[in-house]
C-alpha cells in the first residue's frame, strides 16, 4: 500500500468500511495467553530448563524471522507475534535436558525452512514448530528422547521398566509392547501426577490440566473451535478403548493415552493452527479424526519406531489439508448438494 503523501485526503477503499476489530496479532496474543498456564507448570516442574529452552527458542525465532524478512526485503513481521508462538510451541515440545544449541538449530529450521521460505505466515504448509520437532527428532534422536529420571517413575507399581533410566509414560508402554512384557500399571496417584504434569516429558506437554485451561481460554476467545480438539481427542479415546477391550494385557488404559504425551497440547494448540488446518467445519472434523488415527497407529503398532505420534500425525494431516479443503466445501446457497 502506498504511503499517504497527501494526508488530508479522504481514505477510499472497497466496502466494507467497518471491521469487527480482530487481528492476527490479537489471535497470536491469545494463543500466548493460553499457553501461559502450561509455561507456569513447566517452570514449576522443570525449573531453569524451561526458562532456558523457551527463552532460546523464542529469541532465535524472533531473530530468524527478522533476518529473513530483511533478507527478502519485505516488511518486518515481528509484530504479528507468530514467531513468538512458534518459539514457545517448539520449546514446549522439547525435552528439558536438550542442549541449547540444538534448540537454536530447531528454531532456525522452523522459521527459515518451514515458514519464511514459503513467504511467511499464511503461506507455510506445515506447522513450523512441529516440522522443526520432527526434524530434530530425526537429527538429534538421542538428545530428543533422553529424559532425566524423576521421582514419578519410582512410584510405578510394577517395575517393568528401569526407573533409573527415566522414560516417558508412553515410552515405558511402548517398550513393554515391543518386548512383549505386560503393560506397566499406573496407580491413581500416578495418574494424578500425569494430569498435573509432574512426569517426564517435553517441557510444555506434561501438565494436562494447565493445557486444558489454556484450551478453554482459546475456545472462549473463539480463537479455535471445538471441532478439531474434540475429533482428535475423541478418536484417540475411542481407539484406545477398543484396543483395550480387545486385548487388555497388551494395551494401555485409554486415559493414559489421553493424559500422557503431547496429545492435549497437540489437539488444542498444534492441530488447531489455522494456517495448516482445514477451513470448513466438516474438514476440521476429518482432520481431527485423521490425526487421532495416525497418532494411535504410531503409538500402538508394535514395530513402530516412536512411542509418540502426535507431531507426525499432525504433520501428515497438514500435508493433506489442501485435499481436505478441496473435498469439504460447503453447499453453496441456492445450489443442490
Amino acid at each position: 500500500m502506498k504511503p499517504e503523501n497527501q494526508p488530508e485526503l479522504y481514505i477510499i477503499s472497497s466496502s466494507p468500511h467497518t471491521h469487527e476489530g480482530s487481528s492476527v496479532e490479537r489471535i497470536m496474543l491469545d494463543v500466548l495467553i493460553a499457553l501461559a498456564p502450561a509455561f507456569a507448570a513447566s517452570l514449576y516442574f522443570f525449573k531453569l530448563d524451561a526458562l532456558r529452552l523457551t527463552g532460546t527458542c523464542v529469541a532465535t525465532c524472533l531473530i530468524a524471522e527478522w533476518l529473513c524478512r530483511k533478507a527478502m526485503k519485505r516488511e518486518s513481521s515481528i509484530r504479528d507475534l507468530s514467531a513468538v508462538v512458534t518459539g514457545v510451541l517448539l520449546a514446549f515440545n522439547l525435552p528439558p535436558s536438550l542442549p541449547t544449541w540444538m534448540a537454536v538449530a530447531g528454531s532456525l529450521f522452523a522459521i527459515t525452512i518451514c515458514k519464511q521460505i514459503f513467504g511467511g505466515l499464511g503461506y507455510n504448509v506445515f506447522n513450523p514448530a512441529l516440522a522443526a520437532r520432527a526434524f530434530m527428532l530425526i537429527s538429534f534422536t538421542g538428545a530428543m528422547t533422553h529424559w532425566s529420571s524423576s521421582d514419578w517413575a519410582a512410584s510405578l507399581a510394577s517395575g517393568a521398566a528401569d526407573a533409573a533410566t527415566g522414560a516417558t509414560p508412553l515410552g515405558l508402554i511402548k517398550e513393554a509392547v515391543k518386548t512383549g512384557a505386560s503393560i506397566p500399571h499406573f496407580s491413581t496417584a500416578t495418574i494424578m501426577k500425569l494430569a498435573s504434569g509432574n512426569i517426564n516429558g517435553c517441557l510444555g506437554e506434561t501438565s494436562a490440566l494447565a493445557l486444558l485451561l489454556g484450551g478453554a481460554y482459546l475456545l472462549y476467545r473463539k480463537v479455535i473451535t471445538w471441532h478439531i480438539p474434540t475429533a482428535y481427542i475423541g478418536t484417540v479415546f475411542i481407539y484406545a478403548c477398543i484396543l483395550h477391550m480387545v486385548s487388555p494385557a497388551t494395551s494401555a488404559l485409554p486415559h493414559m493415552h489421553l493424559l500422557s504425551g503431547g496429545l492435549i497440547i497437540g489437539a488444542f494448540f498444534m492441530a488447531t493452527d489455522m494456517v495448516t488446518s482445514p477451513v470448513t467445519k466438516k474438514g476440521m472434523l476429518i482432520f481431527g479424526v485423521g490425526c487421532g488415527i495416525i497418532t494411535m497407529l504410531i503409538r500402538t503398532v508394535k514395530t513402530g519406531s516412536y512411542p509418540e505420534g502426535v507431531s507426525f500425525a499432525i504433520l501428515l494431516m497438514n500435508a493433506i489439508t489442501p485435499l481436505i479443503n478441496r473435498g469439504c466445501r460447503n453447499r453453496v446457497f441456492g445450489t443442490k448438494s
Partner: protein
Amino acid sequence: MQTIKSPYNFRGGIHPAYNKKLSNGSAIESLPLPAVLSVPMSQHLGAPAKPCVKVGDEVKKGTLIGAQNGFISAPIHSPASGKVKVITDVATASGRPCQAIVIECDESNETEFLPPIENWQKSDKDDLLTRIGETGIVGMGGAGFPTKVKLSPPMDKPIDTVIINGAECEPYLTSDHRMMVEHAKEIRIGAEIIRSILGAKTLRIAIEDNKPDAIKAIEDAFQDIEGDVAIAVLHTVYPQGSEKQQIYAVTGREVPSGGLPMDVGCVVENTSTTFAIYEAVIKGLPLMQRVITVTGDAVQKPANLLAPFGTSYQDLIDACGGFTEDKPAKVISGGPMMGFAVSSLETPTGKTSSGLLLLSKKRVSQYSSQACIACGRCVEACPMNLIPSELSQFIEAEDIEGAEEIALMNCIECGSCAFVCPAHRPLVQHMRRGKAAVMAKRMAANAKG
C-alpha cells in the same frame, strides 16, 4: 394480519455494531432547498437517462429532465423549480463520472406533477405499471433496479409472495426505519398496489427484531388488511436485508444460484420504494427526493433528512451542524458494509443514496496486504456458503477459472467476510475484481461465439 417470528435463518452472517441509536430517534426533517442541485443522469442500474432540457431552460418541480434511455433505465425529474445552469460531468458516489444537469433553484416552487390515480383498485394493472415507470421509481435499497421491470415478471414466473423489505440490516442507517415509523399507512397502500399489480396472494413485511417501534407502527397500520398478510419479524443479523437471504428467512425458499427472486415466486421491494410507489400513484409525484440518514461519529447532529436528488454532501453536512472535532477520514455513501467511499463532498445524492456516513480516523479500519492465515472465519460468516479465503487467493494468483469453479459468481459482496478477517484482507475487492474478470471473459466468449 398477524405477526410471525421467522422460523428460518440463513447460515452465516455477522453481528456488527449497529450504531443506529445515533439517528433512529430523529424524526424525518425536510432539508431547506439548496441553492444548486446537480442531478446525475445515472441514479439507477442500466443505461443513464438522456438529458431532455437545454442550458438556460426553466424547469418546474417534477419536470422531466432526463428521458428513459432503453428498457433497463429510468427517467429523471427535476427535484425543484429553477433554471438549468449547465450540463456537465460529475463524480457520483461510485466514483464514475456521469452526466449531470445542474439546476439553479428558485423559490417559486412551481410544480409539474402527474394526475393522481384516485381509484387505483379499479385501474388497469398496466396503467399502474406505466405510472411507476414514468415516475422513475427504482429500487431505493441500493441496487437501483428499475421497479417497473421488477414488477413485470414474465408470464411463466408467477409471483405468489411480495416481501416488503424493512430489515435495514446495514449498521448506522435509519432511513427505512423512520419511514416505517412515520409513514406506515402510506407504505401499506404502496404494498397493496404492488400486490395487486403482481396478483400475489401473500404479503410479508420483513422487519428485524431490533426495531420494535417500526414493528408496532406497521402492526397498527396493517391492522384491518385482508388476505394472507403478516409481519415477519427477522433475527437481527447482517445481511438480513439481502434479497436472497431475506426470501429464505421469510419463506424458506432458496433462490437458485444464478437465479432471481421471481424464480421462487417472490418479489422483494424496499420500504422507501414502496412509499415512492404510493406517492406516484396516489399523489402523482415523480421520484424526486428521498430520506437520507446523515450519521457517523464525525458529524455534529446525525439526522434523517428528506433531501431532493442532486443535493451535495456538503449541503447535507451543513444541515447537520457540520463536522465534529474529529474530522472525517472516510466519507461513505450508503452504509458501512456496502456503501461507497467517496473522495469529494461535492458528490450529489441520488435515488439509491440511503445514507451519508462520516467516520473519523479511529472508526476507519484499514485494509492490509497480509496473507490469508486460513482461520476460516470468513467461511463461517459467508451467507452464501462460499469460501472467501480460497476465492481471494485464487484471484490473487490470477486463477480466474479456479475461482469461477468454486462459485465466485454467487458472491453478493455483502462484506461479511472482510468484516471478520483478522488479516484485514480486502476480500470484497478481490471478489469484485474476480467477478469483473469473469464477466470480461464471458463477454469475450459471447463476442466470439
